[in-house]
């Protein structure tokens, strides 16, 4: 795909994160990611997936090691430059993290705040182009009928699409997704995953998606990274992910778990 000579978009070198002194949440994680890849991170609850994702845009500070995005070492950035970095990295959450009392368009435009001066952002002044871009993205995501609705009136799937729109309006190089479908029913989950995949293909945005569902990871990813107890236990393409490897990641009962969830997913 990408020629070997090009530099990776994201590179993690020996990343370690301690919340307490005894056990590391992340233990010596290293990998690099090329532009345009769709990557899933799988692993059991509490394995460090969320921490790993948040170390990339410095929502959580690493204890040691290096995160390098687009040639910039993120840990050295000062406040203003960190904001600039974050505008290039969108983020999508399990609980959507919208301002529920505001309308869809207001929430989507929040994605532009990283580019704004203090005053313009505080007053919520957006340019005509920004508004047009927001409307365009809302239309693409099929939310045109909800533009001026308050977000607390939307369904889970619609809320997540607002979350995606907010990330896209940033014009990001990469989007981080923290369990984007864990609060959704199977049908909405499929719609959201299809959307993410097609956005990745059509707009050339790199995706890193934390997933609980192994079968979903297998279906959508170019590459799967497995994490367990803060350690990187797997890094490869979906066809390298055998049931034995899954057992390594999830423990011995995982095989049953996976087939079970696969049936449920297919049924939905």
């Amino acid at each position, binding site marked *: 795909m990408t020629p070997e000579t090009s530099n990776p978009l994201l590179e993690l070198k020996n990343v370690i994160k301690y919340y307490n002194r005894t056990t590391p949440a992340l233990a010596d994680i290293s990998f690099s990611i090329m532009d345009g890849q769709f990557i899933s991170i799988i692993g059991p609850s509490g394995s460090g997936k969320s921490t790993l994702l948040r170390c990339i845009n410095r929502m959580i500070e690493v204890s040691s090691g290096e995160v390098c995005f687009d040639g910039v070492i993120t840990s050295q950035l000062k406040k203003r430059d960190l*904001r600039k970095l*974050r*505008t290039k990295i969108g*983020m999508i*959450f399990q609980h959507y993290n919208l301002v529920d*009392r505001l309308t869809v368009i207001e929430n989507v435009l929040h994605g532009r*705040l990283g580019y704004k001066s203090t005053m313009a952002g*505080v007053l919520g002044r957006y340019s005509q182009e920004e508004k047009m871009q927001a409307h365009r993205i809302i239309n693409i995501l099929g939310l045109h009928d909800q533009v001026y609705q308050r977000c607390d009136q939307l369904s889970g799937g619609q809320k997540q699409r607002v979350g995606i729109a907010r*990330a896209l309006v940033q014009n990001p190089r990469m989007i981080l997704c923290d369990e984007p479908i864990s609060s959704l029913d199977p049908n909405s989950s499929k719609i959201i995953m299809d959307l993410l995949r097609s956005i990745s293909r059509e707009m050339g945005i790199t995706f890193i998606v934390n997933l609980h569902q192994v079968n979903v990871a297998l279906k959508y990813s170019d590459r799967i990274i497995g994490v367990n107890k803060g350690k990187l236990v797997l890094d490869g393409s979906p066809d390298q992910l055998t049931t034995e490897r899954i057992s390594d990641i999830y423990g011995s009962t995982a095989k049953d778990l996976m087939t079970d969830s696969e049936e449920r997913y297919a049924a939905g």
Partner: protein
Amino acid sequence: MQQADIFVKRRNDRWIFFAVLAVLTVGSVIITRYDVLKGFTSIVKAFVWGISNFYPDIESMAKLPDILLKLRETVLMSIASTTIAAVFAILLSLAGSRTTRMSRFFSVMARGIASLFRNIPLVAWAMVLMLAFSQSPLTGYLALFFGSLGFLTRSFIETIDEVSHDAVEALEATGAGYFHVIFQAVLPSSLPQMISWLLFMIDTNIRDATLVGFLTGTGIGFSFDLYYKSMNFHAASLVVMLIVITIIIIETASNMIRRNIM
């Protein structure tokens, strides 16, 4: 075995609790020589006295303009002290909340100020302030202000942490600055609940202002004190009635506002 122990322990705890309560009650009755029976019978007596003496008559109506003036003073003072306190409480709560704090040090400071002000009773505030400002409206105003500041800061901190944590995380991840986050996520999410707390505080402050007025010799509390001590029970009862009516009106109004903003 382990489980059974827990149930036995729970039952024992309950017995100990009731035993302690009984001892305290009986003990304090004996020490204060409080006659329980007489206590209950005098409630009836008080009620009978109230019906025959404690009602507004035609003559007391002459005092109505006077009383209304004092009532207005009390209501306006309560509203002013609460709203000003709310402005300061927002600033303190932004500094104190885990979601929006700038540094751990300021957070601890803000929470400390809040709990200090909240835990000193209103009457204590009034008495302390009376030493400085003597009996004047300012004393009552400041007493209400300090009490409200503590309570509102505490409630606002909880509101902010409860309703805006997720949205704040999302906005910070987009690269939004501190003030963007405050004005675009924190305030829109928490304002309705903050206003609700503010209305509640105005409500309680009007009640408390009456009591503080007793001490500071201002407002409607002073009117009551004056009439009661001069044995003008009819006028005193008129004061009580007007306070009750005012509180009912304020409460209805704030419930209406609350319904519309939530």
